Each structure stands twice: as structure tokens, then as C-alpha cells.
């Protein structure tokens, strides 16, 4: 089976800035992405759990998108100002996709 190189970008970020982030993705021409709820975790800002949150302020989401390798730098430059001072993690991994024209 023929596969093609791509980059998988995972952004774990505060739910409160989700729309700002997805707007930045769309502005970069990334119209395909997946948003997942985050159950909990721990990091520099301490331990956190989704259960028992009364405010949207404390929620986290994970936004995943797969793009062509040549678009990676532009995408990262566009999302950096959104992440700015907020809690979050961005990771990039190599992956393979079947239908390259879709990315």
C-alpha cells in the first residue's frame, strides 16, 4: 500500500482558547482537525482533573491535525501567539497517510 509522509500536530490547550486556536488553524488553511476532551493530567501548573469543574475556565482540550510537512513551520508560527501565556503542550510527530491530497 502506498503511503505518504505527513506531520501530526497535537496541541493540548485550555478549553477557553480553543476557538482562538481553531481560528488560527483555519486561517492557515488547515480545515481538518479533531478536538478531544481531556480527562485530566499533571504538569507545571499542578494536577488537574476534568471532574468537579464548575467553570469552563479549568477545562482542557486536545486539538489534533495532520498536515503536509511543508506546511508545518507556517502552522507553528501561527499558533504560537495563541498559546502565548496559556497552559498547554504542542508536539509534532511523523506519520503516514494514505490519501496525501487531503492534507
Amino acid at each position: 500500500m502506498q503511503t505518504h509522509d505527513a506531520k501530526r500536530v497535537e496541541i493540548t490547550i485550555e478549553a477557553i482558547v480553543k476557538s482562538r486556536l481553531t481560528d488560527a488553524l483555519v486561517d492557515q488553511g488547515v480545515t481538518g482537525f479533531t478536538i478531544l476532551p481531556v480527562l485530566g493530567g499533571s504538569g507545571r501548573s499542578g494536577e488537574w482533573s476534568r471532574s468537579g469543574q464548575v467553570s469552563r475556565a479549568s477545562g482542557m482540550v486536545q486539538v489534533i491535525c495532520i498536515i503536509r510537512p511543508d506546511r508545518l513551520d507556517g502552522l507553528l508560527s501561527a499558533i504560537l501567539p495563541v498559546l502565548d501565556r496559556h497552559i498547554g503542550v504542542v508536539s509534532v510527530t511523523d506519520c503516514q497517510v494514505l490519501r496525501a491530497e487531503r492534507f
Partner: protein
Amino acid sequence: MENLLSLAADNLVSPIILSFVLGLTAALARSDLTIPEAIAKAMSIYLLFAIGFKGGVSVAAHGIDATLGLSLIAGVILSALLPLVAFGLLRVLTNLDHVNAGAVAAHYGSISIVTFVAGTSVLESQGLMYEGYMVAVAAAMEAPAILSALWLISRGGGARRMDSDLWREIALNGSIVLLVGSFAIGWITGEDGLAEISSFVVAPFKGVLCLFLLDMGIVAGRGLRAGRGLITMGLLGFGVLMPLIGAGAGLVAALLLGLSTGGAVLLMVLGASASYIAVPAAMRVAVPEANPSIYLTLSLGVTFPFNLALGLPIYVSVARAVTGG
């Protein structure tokens, strides 16, 4: 004084407070008791809808007068000014930097709608009437405090510039939209509308409030556990003193407006309560450097239980003594 003690004792053994205590105790004891997230969300939607709707019906029944407009203005002014007092008090009592002090101050100018709902429940159990439009005053008091606090923080160069996202977060957050919207529906449909859905918005209200407060107790307990190392004696003192100052300001405004005893209690409650829904969200957008553990633990873990258990009877007793109601 005897009256206050008896009211406080009655309040402490009410199903609402005991439900909160159960949740708080369970969380502090590390029990695995939880209310599913979706159910907690549904209960908060129900409570906001019911309290807004009943407020609108009350306004439809009694009509509007100049006091409504003046009460709204007074609410906005209170909400805008209380953060300045809170900020000053924090700088005196604690060693918080100006960003964290400003973020905490915003919470104390804004309101807790659950404390307001618990206040209406206490008033009803005491047979005290209140102006239905106080719900609208509650909605009006959500946002001005955020703007005041952002101004305070921006003086030190800490806050982000206001943009459309932030404005949307402040003015159109779900609780404000639901509260104002259900108030409008109640106002438009009046007593006839209430008769149609009273079995939904009136009868189960207190039971749902008990369950919601059970959840709030769990959340407050977890917050207290998580923020144990953060809450200093100065912050603790602020969390108890600031509601009393806010209640005092609310009482003065109520007297100037000529509100009923029940209305005065509710304006005191609004002045005394601290936000833990709308303001934290706005602060995360505008001032992400501020530590949410500080402002959430203070408003939810210290001031909310204080208002619920001791504040409400104090406000009712003081308002009764001052207004003669």
C-alpha cells in the same frame, strides 16, 4: 442577637446546607463520591432557568417602576467598585502581586448565582418577599467587576488587550444568557406561563438545589485540598472579611433605593458573593498569568461556604434590624 443565632442554627440544619456539608466532607475525606459532569451541568442550567423565569414572572405581576432601573444601575456601580476595595484589601492583608490581586478582586465584585439562589430559598423559608427583578440585578453585576479588575491589572501592564473574544466571554457567557433569557421568558409569559410549567420550575427546585450544592461541596472540598498550601491566613481573612464589606455596601445601596427587606438581603448577598463561573473564565482568557488555584480556592472554598453557612443568616438579621422588616 438571639434572632441571629436561631436563624443561623436553622440555616445550618437546612437540607441545602447539610447537602453542601456532605459533599465537602466527602471530598475532604477523599471519598470517590462524584456527581457526573453532565448532570451537574444540567442542574445548573435548571437552576438558572428556574430562578430567571420566576424573577421575570414576578416583574410581570408587579410591573416595573423606576426602582428597577435604579437597582440595575446600583448593581453595576457596586460590581465596578467592589474590586477596587478588594484589590486594596488584598494588598494590605496579603503579599499577592498586582496580577493575582487584580484577578481575585474581579471575583469579589462579580456574583455567585448559587449563593443568590440559596439566599432566595432562605428568604422564602422566612416568609420574606423580595423584588423579582433582583435576578436582573444579579445578571447586571456579573461583568462590570471584570472590567474594573482588568483596568487595575493593566495599570501594571499585566492584562491582555480587550478583543472580541474577551468581550464575548464577558457579556455572552452561558450563565448570563440563560439567566437574562429565562427572565425575559418569565416576564413575557407572566403568571399564565408559570402556571403551565410550575410543576417543573417550582416544585422540584429545592431538591435540585440540594443535589447541586452536594456537588458544589465536593468541588469546594477538592479545591480546598488542592489549594491547601496556597491559602495563607491573610487570604483566609480576606475571604471572610470581603463578603462582609460587600454585604455592607449592598445594604447601603438597598437603603438608598428603598428596597424591601428581602430585596435588601439579596443585594447584600450579591455584594457579598464571589464569582466562580463567569469570572474565572474571563481571567483565564485575559490574565492567564494569574494563578487560578488562588482565586478559585478563595471564592469557592472559603467565601462560598462562609456565605452559605454564616453569611446568609447574618445578612437576613442585619437587613431585618435595619429595615425593620
